[in-house]
């Protein structure tokens, strides 16, 4: 990832669009880098200017500070979710409800959000604890593991399947599918084929569940697919295509993200015994530590939107069709908002981070993700209160093209008895 001056040929065209004083960079954030590099870059961009123009792809505006990113989220009438990937202004796909704008958006959102509301999440919390306890118990006698693949991917997947109402043992299928899907962003041909196959596998799984639920004489309780099958929007049934899209989006949005966030939190705990110790002694602080990891170790490098109307935004003339990129990871470390912005403060107050985005598209799975992370920390520390990183090699993270995650986190601990 480098910031360079744009090529001389581009200079004229860019200077026509970008106001004086707005820095122009060329930044492709997708390659994997050593852990922390993306947040360091976000800090650098934020302190350079509240708005930066990036000549990557067709070119897009980057909002780097907290207030600007929040405003972007809160104004869907200006910043549409028609595209949320700034280097892909005309996507061929349409994720529901992610890429639907208000007022249409709320019809889909209401249908799904109740299922992931705090009360619904609490319903599966006892099972989540059982799953966490079992996964840690299976690892504890080994004395080491790759936290990312052996635990961080597995636990959110099992809990997600439980809340949807399908067997949590089907995590055996979903873990490799989700891994293959996100590895496909690397761009190599074999990986892209595996990505296509994974997507096909996920879709076929839901086709089969849908078929089975259709045979029911009445709607099942605690079963999300059955709920979708019996729901209507504007007095019309959703239809199979839409139901399959919704289910697939939930899988792709919910599992890899929680894995990524867990990886950074456990890397922090491995490297900071005093914070680990504090959570063992004061488990009531675990939810606060979870929030702080969402703020400091934000896995969303940035979030894209498409400009829906000509407007002036903090001195920048935005044209309809322009792409913008809210640098969430920069916003969450903005010293204009946070004391000690680059430090992990276990008991931080007034932590209003944007790790789950904001506005109408606030992360639908936020309450579930928080519960999964809390359960992970509680169950892990109960059996493995002391652990460390088991490599001297630098840890690498997937780039900000998709959601960031550590590619691997080798942990080791002493086996007792």
């Amino acid at each position: 990832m480098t910031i360079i001056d744009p090529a001389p040929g581009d200079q004229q065209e860019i200077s026509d669009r970008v106001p004086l004083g707005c820095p122009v960079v060329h930044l492709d954030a997708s390659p994997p880098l050593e852990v922390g590099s993306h947040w360091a870059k976000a800090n650098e961009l934020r302190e350079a200017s509240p708005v930066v123009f990036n000549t990557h792809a067709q070119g897009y505006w980057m909002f780097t500070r907290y207030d600007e990113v929040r405003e972007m989220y809160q104004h869907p009438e200006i910043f549409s979710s028609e595209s949320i990937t700034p280097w892909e202004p005309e996507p061929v796909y349409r994720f529901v409800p992610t890429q639907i704008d208000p007022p249409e958006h709320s019809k889909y959102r209401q249908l799904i959000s109740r299922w992931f509301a705090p009360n619904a999440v609490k319903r599966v919390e006892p099972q989540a604890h059982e799953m966490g306890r079992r996964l840690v118990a299976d690892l504890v006698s080994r004395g080491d593991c790759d936290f990312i693949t052996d635990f961080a991917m597995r636990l959110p997947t099992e809990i997600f399947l439980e809340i949807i109402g399908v067997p949590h043992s089907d995590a055996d299928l979903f873990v490799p599918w989700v891994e293959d899907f996100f590895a496909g962003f690397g761009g190599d041909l074999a990986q892209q084929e595996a990505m296509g196959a994974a997507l096909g596998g996920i879709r076929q799984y839901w086709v089969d569940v849908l078929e089975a639920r259709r045979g029911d004489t009445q709607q099942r309780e605690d079963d999300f697919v059955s709920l979708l099958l019996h729901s209507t929007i504007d007095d019309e049934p959703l239809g199979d295509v839409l139901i399959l899209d919704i289910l697939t989006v939930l899988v792709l949005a919910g599992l890899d993200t929680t894995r990524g966030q867990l990886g950074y939190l456990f890397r922090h705990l491995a490297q900071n015994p005093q914070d680990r110790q504090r959570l063992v002694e004061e488990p009531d602080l675990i939810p606060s530590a979870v929030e702080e990891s969402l703020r400091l170790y934000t896995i969303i490098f940035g979030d894209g939107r498409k400009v829906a109307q000509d407007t002036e935004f903090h001195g920048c003339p935005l044209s309809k069709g322009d792409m913008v990129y809210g640098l969430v990871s920069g916003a969450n470390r903005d010293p204009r908002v946070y004391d000690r912005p680059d430090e992990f403060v276990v008991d931080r107050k007034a932590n209003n981070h944007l790790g789950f985005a904001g506005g109408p598209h606030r992360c639908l799975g936020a309450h579930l993700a928080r519960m999964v992370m809390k359960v992970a920390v509680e169950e892990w520390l109960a059996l493995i209160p002391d652990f460390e990183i088991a490599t001297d090699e630098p840890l690498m993270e997937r780039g900000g093209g998709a959601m960031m995650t550590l590619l691997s986190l080798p942990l080791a601990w002493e086996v007792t008895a």
Partner: protein
Amino acid sequence: MKLEFDAALCRGHGRCYTLAEDLLTEDDEGYVTARGQVVDVPPDQVDDARNAAGSCPEQAITILED
């Protein structure tokens, strides 16, 4: 002290009723039930109330001092 909850800005992040659990409750969709209302804060819950207001990512909660 009072807290005022902006109904249009609230997006159900759930930070406020988690941090001030003796003062606030949530509905079945995950919104604070005080959405669009003004809530009196008892003296012993002022710290929690400030933390709740300051933790809202939407800045939907305004602190009204007496």
